[in-house]
């Protein structure tokens, strides 16, 4: 019993410490980590800690047709680093790379919030979606895989889904 306890305690402590590491230092695909690092370099800011827990939980409660959900939140960003509206599109395009196709862009003019959604095909009947949401204080990067049916909902109602994703990004920041 004592042996088992001595094994479990460091394991739990290690797990706890692992969760405290910034997100890019841990799980997630290499491409997402690269994107996070690029954004991190851009804003000179590390993403929030405990993203591992959030991703772990989110992947168990994602909507039907959504999987491999990953999120990185950069809070209290220096908004003076955010490119002006007319340059934001090209700046984000260079951030996400040419493989992603711009799909929906929502700009709340009053608050200055931007949500840009990109998609690309990802092999066998799977599609990847990348959502970049930037507001006056935070920036959120989300990546997920969608089934064709889930993407079809987006294609049918791109404006509604784009607005919804902006709200989701806001909630992620608040939580």
């Amino acid at each position, binding site marked *: 019993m004592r042996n088992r306890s001595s094994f479990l305690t460091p394991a739990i402590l290690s797990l706890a410490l692992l969760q405290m590491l910034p997100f890019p230092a841990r799980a997630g695909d290499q491409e997402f980590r690269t994107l996070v690092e690029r954004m991190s370099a851009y804003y000179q800011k590390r993403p929030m800690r405990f993203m591992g827990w959030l991703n772990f939980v989110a992947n168990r409660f994602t909507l039907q047709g959504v999987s491999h959900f990953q999120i990185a939140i950069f809070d209290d960003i220096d908004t003076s680093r955010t490119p002006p509206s007319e340059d934001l599109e090209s700046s984000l395009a260079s951030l996400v790379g040419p493989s992603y196709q711009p799909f929906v862009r929502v*700009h709340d003019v009053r608050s200055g919030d931007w949500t840009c959604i990109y998609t690309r095909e990802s092999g066998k009947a799977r599609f990847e979606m990348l959502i970049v949401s930037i507001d006056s204080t935070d920036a959120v990067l989300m990546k997920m895989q969608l089934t064709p049916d889930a993407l079809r909902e987006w294609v049918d109602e791109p*404006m509604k889904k784009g607005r919804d994703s902006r709200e989701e990004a806001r909630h992620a920041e608040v939580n």
Partner: protein
Amino acid sequence: MNVSYNKIRTSAFLTLFGVMLAGTFSPPAFGQDPRLDIKNLEALSKKASEVVDVNLDGPLLKLASRFMTDEDDREGLEVIKNLKGIYVKSFTFDKPGDYSVEDVEAIRSQLHAPAWSRIVTARDKREGEITEIYLMTERDGGNILGMAIIDAEPTELTVVNIVGPVDIDKLSQLEGKMGIPRLGDQTKEQKPAGHHEKP
């Protein structure tokens, strides 16, 4: 002999120059591109409370057509399968009067005759809504190259640009989808080919 050769060479150069000049200003360069320059509406963006852009082209449009496997989707698939792109820009305003007729003119100015013909103008005076549908056809009035829809409501202005051959009879299949607003019965008011309104 030399003089004659020089004359021939000069004349050949002039002919070549003329052909190149004509090519530069040939009809395709004079606005036969059905893709609207929506970026010139940035001034309108500043008056809006929200701006939404939707780009459905290339691989994404192909994907969309691949999903349309249901029986109900057959006509919708017929509409989009040959399209090159659907581009939507929607402005939402806080209150009526936040945008003017002149602002809409920035869009209309791109929809000139002879390249573009307005085929539908529908006004709902009670709701204060105006919908205009424009078509770009080949110069001989044959194939449709693209379509533009301006849907102006008191607090919302939506511009839809469909690039590629559109079957206008089946346009209703796309209403309310892909960012295209619902047009009600307005599409039924289209005039027969060759009797287009000029903007």
